[in-house]
């Protein structure tokens, strides 16, 4: 039995929001610190280290709550206290920690002197935590906006780069548009069920038999469009390449990994928890979204010659795989999602870290062929990149395989064999663009003597790459513990489908 928390008392409320509050306090401390000292690179390093401390301590708080097994005394609170929240929060925080570590050296090298950068990274992380913990559509919306606002600014943080500015404006406009859809969806769901609370919404739907109510369906549709933009599912993906391409590389990694994972987290909670009774409707939609996202993302990635754009499109493909897990509509699918985003966060951050390291003359211009001969000059970097590429490909021996295997098994156990076949076909296509990276590094010779002489992992980025590569291999061979944690995290996400209140 875990630790019961009564959210109606002030003490219980603080306890329920402990990770968010801890991170907010750290964020405020950091804000004061950077207001006071923001003159040179040293100050910026200090800001980064403070952010790191804040994120790590929040991660510890989240893990503490998970180990304690904190659960709510009442079922209909606005804050979720369950394994799914702890698992996803931990993954976002790991993502944010790795992004900060990546930025420590990166900002200095690119001569971006904006210590507020770290404040924004933390702010975005707070938004993500709220998206994970929101058991009410309003809380989820607030979290989404908090996260998005911070990311809009971060995308354009490099003021001297026109591409960065373009990325920020594009992301802002489309993000605002998506938020509009999202909010309209919430309004319609409220209109149909009279509540924004996820648990109450489920019981309202079951009790009143609203499964195919028109207003509810319209609400689901709007909500899916809003989420579709945030997770970059085709056909709502148009902003991805330019935004990912223009933003500073650590922020691109943040967007591709943690931001996307946060949007998926909220989507899964809303669909499985609140709208589980209407699953016949949304499973079909998610299935088709998944299929076109996988196929389009992978096919366009195949045509890319530049590494950063290739990774951007490949992240669309991965969104498709995660949607496939969701299309099974089961807790098994949610467990697959948890493992998948952990692996995905590690491999995405790792590969963007390598991209940042080789892109000393601008990461936007790194072609896949520019990696030629990297293995002979920077053997460890090439080896790590190989692990990331194979893991993204879903090759056995890496965490990416276990993730893909869990997704496949969720899909197959839901008897959606056709979707499973389409998923593996999409994976086959992805071999066509992940392998050339490995091929360039190992099988082509360096174009000139001094190629790669300037590239190298700076400071903490080395740790990011090392940790990510080792964890990916470890989880690929011995995933037992994390598999259990993922299953634990997904348990109870879907409320009992029976009409408890009417019978």
């Amino acid at each position, binding site marked *: 039995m875990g630790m019961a928390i009564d959210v109606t008392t002030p003490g219980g409320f603080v306890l329920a929001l402990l990770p968010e509050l801890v991170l907010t306090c750290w964020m405020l401390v950091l804000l004061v610190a950077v207001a006071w000292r923001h003159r040179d690179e040293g100050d910026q390093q200090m800001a980064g280290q403070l952010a790191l401390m804040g994120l790590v301590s929040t991660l510890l708080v989240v893990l503490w709550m998970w180990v304690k097994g904190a659960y709510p005394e009442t079922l209909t609170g606005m804050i979720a206290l369950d394994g799914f929240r702890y698992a996803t929060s931990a993954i976002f925080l790991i993502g944010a920690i790795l992004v900060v570590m990546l930025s420590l050296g990166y900002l200095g090298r690119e001569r971006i002197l904006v210590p507020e950068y770290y404040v924004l990274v933390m702010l975005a992380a707070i938004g993500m935590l709220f998206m994970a913990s929101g058991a009410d559509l309003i809380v989820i919306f607030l979290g989404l906006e908090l996260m998005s606002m911070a990311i809009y600014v971060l995308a354009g943080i490099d003021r001297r780069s026109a591409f960065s500015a373009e990325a920020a404006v594009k992301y802002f406009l489309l993000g605002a548009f998506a938020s509009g859809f999202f909010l309209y969806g919430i309004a319609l769901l409220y209109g149909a069920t009279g509540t924004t609370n996820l648990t109450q919404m489920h019981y309202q739907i079951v009790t009143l038999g609203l499964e195919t109510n028109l207003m509810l369906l319209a609400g689901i549709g709007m909500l899916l469009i809003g989420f579709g933009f945030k997770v970059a599912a085709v056909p709502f993906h148009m902003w991805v390449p330019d935004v990912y391409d223009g933003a500073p590389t650590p922020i691109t990694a943040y967007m591709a990994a943690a931001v996307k994972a946060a949007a998926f987290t909220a989507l899964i909670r809303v669909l499985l928890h609140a709208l589980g009774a209407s699953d016949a409707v949304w499973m079909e939609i998610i299935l088709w979204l998944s299929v076109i996202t996988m196929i389009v993302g992978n096919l366009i990635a195949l045509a890319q010659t530049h590494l950063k754009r290739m990774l951007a499109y490949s992240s669309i493909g991965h969104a498709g795989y995660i949607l496939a897990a969701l299309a099974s509509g089961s807790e098994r699918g949610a467990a697959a999602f948890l493992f998948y985003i952990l692996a995905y966060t590690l491999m995405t951050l790792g590969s963007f870290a390598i991209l940042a390291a080789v892109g000393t003359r601008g990461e936007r211009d790194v072609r896949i062929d520019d990696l030629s001969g990297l293995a002979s000059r920077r053997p460890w970097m090439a080896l790590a990149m190989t692990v990331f590429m194979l893991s993204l490909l879903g090759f056995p*021996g890496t965490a990416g395989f276990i993730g893909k295997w869990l997704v496949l098994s969720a899909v197959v156990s839901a008897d959606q064999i056709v979707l499973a076949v389409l998923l593996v076909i999409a994976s086959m296509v992805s071999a066509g663009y992940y392998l050339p990276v490995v091929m360039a590094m190992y*099988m082509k010779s360096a174009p000139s003597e001094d190629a790669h002489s300037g590239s190298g992992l700076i400071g903490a980025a080395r740790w990011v790459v090392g940790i990510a590569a080792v964890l990916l291999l470890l989880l690929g061979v011995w995933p037992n513990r994390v598999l259990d944690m993922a299953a634990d995290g997904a348990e109870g996400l879907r409320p009992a489908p029976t009409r408890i209140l009417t019978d």
Partner: protein
Amino acid sequence: MTEFLGNIGYNNWVLDALLVIPLVGALAVLSVPAGEAKKVALGVTLVEFLVSVPLWWTFQIGTAAMQFQHAYPWIPGWGIYYRVGIDGISLLMVLLTTLTMPLAVLGSWNYIKDKLCPYYALLLVLTTGMLGVFVALDLFMFYVLWEVMLIPMYFLIGVWGGPRRLYAAIKFFIYTFVGSLLMLVAILAIYYMVGDATGVYSFAYDHLLENIGAVGSWGFWLFGAFALAFAIKVPMFPFHTWLPDAHVEAPTAASVILAGILLKMGTYGFLRFALPFFPSEAMHPTVVTIVVGLAVIGIVYGALVAMVQPDFKKLVAYSSVSHLGFVMLGIWALTQASVAGAIIIMVSHGISTGALFFLAGMLSERRHTREIAAFGGLAKVVPGLAVVLTVVALSSIGLPGTNGFVGEFLVLIGSWGPYPWATAVAATGVIFAAAYLLWALQRIIYNKLDKPENEHLPDLSKREILVLAPLLACILWIGLYPKPLLDRIEASTEHLITTVQEQRASVAPTPGSEEQVP
């Protein structure tokens, strides 16, 4: 001897040791200076071979049960175990692998000149992967090793290969990857269908085999997924195009391993998984027509294409397509003689074609070309090499008294009953084989010594003799006295044939209405 082995618990650890030794060896190779790498690798592969040899005697003849079996939990929550064990068929494959590896190391001795440590480490990792595929009795473990093995091969071709190595490497990878991913879906589907029916979710081979009836009408699709993965690996006729490219571009040792062992994984997969799991689907008249048809096309087509190759290595590569066609024909004929013959071809093709690739490598090391037209009259210059090449070529043709004859003869007699027409056409493959190999022999070692570059070629060195001698010994041994091999596989083949026929009988409603089989 047996007593001593019993005392040290040989049967309990031998398979684990075979899988672990190369991995430890790979780490050792990576940590020594480049000059020592090949010596360490040779040592490790020799130890591996010596460890595996007693299997020959401790293996119990006359039982089809899996031997040396044991299991450790891997991901027990999902019913995934490290499960290993061998029967007669896997025994021969394991021994073929452990015999080939030291020779492959020895054959790379002077040929590989740069990046020595990673090269030998990859060879050793590859050994573990291949042996793992042959001993795995858990479908998850089988799948993982089946895929993992691709990586070392991909690098061996792509880094140390010939001029078109990039193309060959990626083609090899993608072809195999495409087939195996569908197999993954099929494995998962079987896992859930059997699990839902029995309540026990497990990837164990025995468990799935016993309850395979649960898949019902999905059988055809699942069989198709397995068959595609294996057919690409064999390779059967329309899926064979990766093979010549990979063979020609790969360094000698990698070609030997590809031909000798990797191709056998496809036919092994059919024998171990596709056929026992889906007997009624595999023996459905339409499937039979397709498979036997493709096998025969492969035999004739491979032989005809081999005949016109100007490149000796490519000639040998296409001859593999032809030989593997015999194996497929033998398996599908499903008689005691034909299946045993198919397995014998699997072994003897590994030996003869392995030797041919070594010889092709030796020729191109001397002349830096593989064009048949560049040679001529070598019998005078390098008599030793010429004799060996002649013997090996004759064994590949299937001359009585050599290993090639035993397998092909058994397949042809065994298949005559069920498929007389197909067998008649297949038999022409033997004639074509004689044509392309003898013609190549004529152009390489006979004819006039008309090219001045060929006049001062060195004959076989001691190291090269060391590489070829064990293969020659096997060629003659299997050719003259194949009984020990046949004894060891007899029970397994018999078991395979009876189970397939029983299951077929139990599924098919009445003979004569076979078209109605779902």
